[in-house]
């Protein structure tokens, strides 16, 4: 096909901006996705992740900046000229063609003599060879999704784009497809860019996760590292759930910063804090916090609180407590003890944690205000996040 650009290598997005009128959907984005990696773009709706994907596909053109694969500049080229294929959110299968013809569409356009044979191989890969002669309307959502994956994969693109491909599936099928997609990616070794608003999906599947907000990348890295050490309040609440307290750095104690949070003194390792002086949002993950009737000794960090709600989920118990500043924190405690501590709403308790688990993020422009709305806001921002958040409702 004339105009088609062969390109191999890493995908590079160089200071790309996409404006719609006055609104910058993507704002000076720079990103390198190494060849063969499984990369997730995670963010709430409207954060610019889908626009980024569409620019890589060529369905939108950047207002500023360049998009390259290896040394080949793809900026300005048409979608059909790029070695990139997309799995659309709505699957976008051709309704008038059979499954086999859908999958063979790409190879046929590129003049492959054995297009149908390639299609059958791709259908084997997604385990649907028996449905090759059906029409898309005769398939279930999960099957259509697999056909959409096969239709893109059969072209062996340099980069495969997945635009919330699992959004329309029910929870069980989604889990199954997550494993499936990961298996396929490992098998074919192509670069996958997966756009999703589901933090759990991003963390289970991707080697690298980039969290986007307002057209910018807030944080990027391996899922576990990002969960362990978020660098902004947005990431702290979008990737998992965090207890955050607005405070002020008062002192330094060896490797630790001493922070005053509404009268309680807590410590943060200075390497785990994004600010070294002044205002700070102190944070700790709910499952890192222990709950006690009496003030513990020799722990290092603690805070008094009043129990607001207790919900027992079997493997764990989730407590919602009000700390003395008025903020609501949550504590997620595994039911390890033979005799669990029997707490009721209204009880005075102490919370403690290992100071090594605490983190500090900048307090300016923090989107999540301190206060009782914290837990519910984190939940409503992402309806499909992990069990800890769902239990909070």
């Amino acid at each position: 096909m004339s105009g088609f650009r062969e390109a191999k290598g890493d995908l590079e997005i160089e200071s790309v901006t996409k404006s719609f009128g006055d609104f910058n959907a993507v704002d000076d984005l720079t990103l390198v996705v190494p060849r063969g990696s499984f990369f997730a773009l995670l963010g709430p709706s409207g954060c610019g992740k889908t626009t980024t994907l569409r620019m890589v596909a060529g369905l939108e053109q950047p207002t500023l900046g360049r998009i390259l694969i290896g040394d080949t500049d793809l900026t300005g080229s048409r979608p059909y000229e790029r070695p990139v294929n997309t799995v659309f959110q709505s699957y976008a299968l051709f309704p008038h063609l059979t499954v086999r013809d859908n999958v063979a569409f790409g190879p046929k356009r590129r003049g492959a003599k054995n297009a149908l044979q390639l299609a059958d191989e791709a259908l084997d890969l997604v385990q649907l060879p028996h449905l090759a002669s059906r029409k898309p309307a005769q398939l279930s959502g999960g099957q259509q999704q697999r056909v959409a994956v096969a239709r893109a994969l059969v072209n062996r693109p340099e980069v495969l784009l997945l635009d919330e491909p699992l959004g329309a599936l029910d929870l069980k099928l989604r889990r199954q497809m997550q494993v499936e997609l990961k298996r396929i990616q490992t098998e074919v070794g192509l670069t996958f860019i997966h756009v999703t608003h589901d933090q759990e999906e991003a963390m289970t599947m991707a080697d690298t996760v980039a969290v986007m907000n307002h057209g910018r990348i807030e944080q990027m890295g391996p899922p576990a590292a990002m969960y362990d050490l978020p660098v902004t309040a947005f990431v702290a609440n979008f990737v998992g759930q965090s207890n955050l307290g607005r405070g002020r750095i008062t002192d330094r104690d060896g490797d630790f910063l001493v922070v005053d949070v509404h009268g309680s003194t807590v410590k943060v390792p200075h390497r785990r804090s994004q600010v070294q002086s002044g205002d700070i949002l102190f944070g700790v993950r709910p499952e890192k916090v222990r709950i006690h009737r009496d003030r513990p000794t020799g722990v290092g960090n603690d805070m008094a609180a009043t129990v607001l709600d207790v919900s027992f989920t079997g493997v764990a118990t989730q407590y919602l407590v009000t700390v003395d500043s008025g903020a609501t924190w949550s504590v997620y405690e595994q039911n390890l003890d033979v005799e669990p501590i029997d707490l009721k709403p209204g009880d005075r308790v102490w919370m403690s944690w290992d100071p090594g688990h605490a983190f500090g993020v900048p307090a300016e422009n923090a989107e999540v205000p301190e206060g009782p709305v914290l837990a519910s806001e984190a939940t409503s921002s992402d309806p499909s996040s992990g069990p800890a958040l769902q239990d909070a409702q």
Partner: protein
Amino acid sequence: MSALAHAGGGGGHPAATGPDQAKRGSWLPYLLLLPGLLWLAIFFVAPLVQLFTVSLQSKLKGYPGYYYRDLNFRNYWSALTEFAPHFGRSLLFAGLATFFAFCLAYPLAYAMAFKAGKWRGVMMICIIAPFFTSFMLRTIAWRQILADEGAVASTLNFLHVLPGGRITETWMAVVAGLTYNFLPFMVLPIYASLERADPRVIEAGGDLYANGFTTFRTVTLPMSMPGVIAGTLLTFIPAAGDYVNAELLGSDRSTKMVGNVIESQFFKVPGGFPIAAALSFTLMALILAMVFVYIRRFGTEELL
């Protein structure tokens, strides 16, 4: 029967499905169908049967304009042989009008569905608004547009591209009128099927290495085929039976269509009733057969 009872009682309270309820449920659907069926029986089936008996009547010798009940199938034979050119013209003009209407309607519907943006509503009104004036008046207006001294005819004559020097009273005027009059019936179904198409599916064509033209040929056009089929049928069928355009825009001799013959046999030729009825039935059978072949060939049920 039980399925019907279920369907009929489905709207009611689930607890109220005793034997009485089931019984009422079983005849309720038929009761609801009754007005429509009666309407069809009185205003469609009965006239059709009446027309069919008329088509087999014979003239009463010596009494012009009188007939007697008969099984005179020769009426059909003389209808076909005597008026074969008119049948041919009807099908040809209707076919041409359908073709031109398609050529005009598809780009229009495409622009409305994908390019019009905020102008979509205005375009829709422009297509529907002519229906607010009478079909006859609009066709008469076309006589002015195509008149010998009119802008269209004089321009074409100036360019020396008009054979015969005039448009009115030629087949061109009839086909133009038919095309104009049935254009909305072509535009609306095509627009509906294009508008319903997921734009992501068309984007997927580009994503899978098809350029703009190939995407149109392999994705957009096949996806809009249900609309194209509906549009061509809605244009061809009434155009084949039309007589107003040929009457008002055509000439007395060379552009008469079957509709005109039926009209004159019924109302102008003494003793023409059986022939007119036979012509009507023949036209109906011809169109039915063509539609049947067309749908079998381009079958709609497989699409979407």
